[in-house]
């Protein structure tokens, strides 16, 4: 049987994106039931291979697999033989001997999920590969926007922050552009990768221009663990020029949604009054993420539709 992977949102058609969003919407009610579990994936095995630090995404995938009644195997970087020098492919082939139906992979290198998909007989779900893609985070951004605005086509979406290091940005921008949104990407020149327009977006280095008339503002996390790269002089300077505060937000539409993939650096990219304000849908994104990950696992565990 041909395997169905979810490696990225780049390259998916509008119809495929809409199908995944519809599927995720169908899974939302599972978390509202008295019994928050369905037998859909009974007898199937989902392997969570997280070779880079992650708490939020890992627990979201783990709970998603459990709510679908799949068996889960969880392996994290520090506890694995990766520490002993085993290569990714050897680790994955060892796991494949247990015949998992799905492997969910988080890895620091771009393209790691694609590599597994070529060499291992399991459906691969990319849970973040380097600075490349994070498709379930992109889908939950799309679904959060669609739920609040009913449609994505025609919306102006500003994506502000460290685009160069953000796999979330790449997935979200590709999905938004494919579904017809007008995407404006904004950040300091050191954080705007060359050629990002190929995903179907415009670019600017002026925060005010990006936010002007926006329906959605997506703020990206400043990755302090990468501060050694000196992409900007100081947190305070970044906040003053690229942060989202109530005054800047006034330039957006009155009902503008504010999104952030978390965890938030309060006072750096996002002013606390905006993070906790009425426009913020950040906590919606978390619960939506669970439904999206159930949809991703269900979609991939099923293989190609035979009928």
């Amino acid at each position, binding site marked *: *049987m041909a395997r169905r992977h979810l490696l990225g949102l780049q390259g998916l058609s509008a119809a495929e994106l809409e199908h995944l969003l519809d*599927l995720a*919407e*169908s*899974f*939302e*009610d*599972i978390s509202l*039931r*008295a*019994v928050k*579990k*369905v*037998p*859909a994936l009974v*007898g*199937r095995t989902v392997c969570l291979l997280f070779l880079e630090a992650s708490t939020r995404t890992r627990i979201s995938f783990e709970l998603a697999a459990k709510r*679908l009644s799949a068996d889960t195997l969880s392996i994290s970087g520090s506890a694995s033989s990766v520490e002993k020098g085993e290569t990714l492919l050897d680790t994955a082939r060892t796991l494949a001997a247990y015949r998992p*139906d799905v492997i969910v992979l988080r890895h620091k290198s771009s393209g790691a999920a694609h590599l597994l998909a070529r060499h291992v007989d399991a459906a691969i779900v990319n849970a973040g590969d380097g600075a490349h893609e994070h498709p379930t985070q992109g889908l939950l951004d799309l679904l959060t926007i669609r739920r609040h605005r009913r449609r994505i086509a025609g919306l102006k979406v500003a994506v502000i922050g460290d685009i160069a290091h953000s796999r979330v940005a790449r997935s979200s921008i590709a999905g938004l552009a494919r579904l017809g949104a007008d995407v404006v990407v904004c950040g300091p020149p050191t954080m705007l990768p060359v050629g990002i327009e190929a995903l179907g977006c415009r670019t600017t280095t002026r925060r005010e221009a990006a936010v002007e008339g926006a329906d959605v503002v997506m703020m990206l996390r400043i990755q302090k663990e990468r501060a050694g790269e000196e992409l900007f002089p100081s947190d305070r300077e970044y906040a003053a020029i690229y942060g989202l505060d109530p005054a800047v937000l006034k330039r957006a539409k009155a009902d503008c949604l504010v999104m952030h993939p978390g965890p938030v650096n309060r006072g750096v990219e996002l002013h606390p009054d905006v993070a906790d304000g009425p426009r913020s849908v950040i906590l919606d994104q978390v619960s939506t993420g669970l439904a999206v990950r159930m949809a991703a696992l*269900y979609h991939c*565990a*099923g*293989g*190609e*539709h*035979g*009928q």
Partner: protein
Amino acid sequence: MKHAGRLLLDARALDRTLRRLALQILEGDPLADLALVGVRTRGVPLAHRLAALLAQEGLTVPVGELDIALYRDDTRSGRALPEVRPTRLPFSVDGQAIVLVDDVLFTGRTTRAALDALMAWGRPRVVRLAVLVDRGHRELPLHADHVGLAVETTRAQTVAVRLAEADGIDGVWLEGA
């Protein structure tokens, strides 16, 4: 619209059958806390029609829509998984008297899945089953409480229920030999 196969119920007969089903439901259980739950796909419009007929008799009942894809028993490893749609139950299932509504009762496996799906939402006081057509060939120990039309079939035949809401035409046909 032309349709292959033998006509079992035309539009008028289908309407008459639904009226009879509605009366059976009225005369059945004690009616406090009654709700109808349609099994997707064609059980849903049937449940809404039955609710409209009950309303004509002065009884207002809520209608739910149940998707059973995640509870099917024919989705073992190595097979394609069915499409999933949302379940909508605009009432608490706990303590309710629920009439499950489906178009055709055949092996009983759909009904088994529907019962499991329903129980995940709570503990109803009583569950009854109303079907438009009972075509026999049960594979599980289940029966319908309210049957619109019982018809003899062979296993290879198909009972095609067409409803205006989904198909643009009302009627029931028996297809194949």
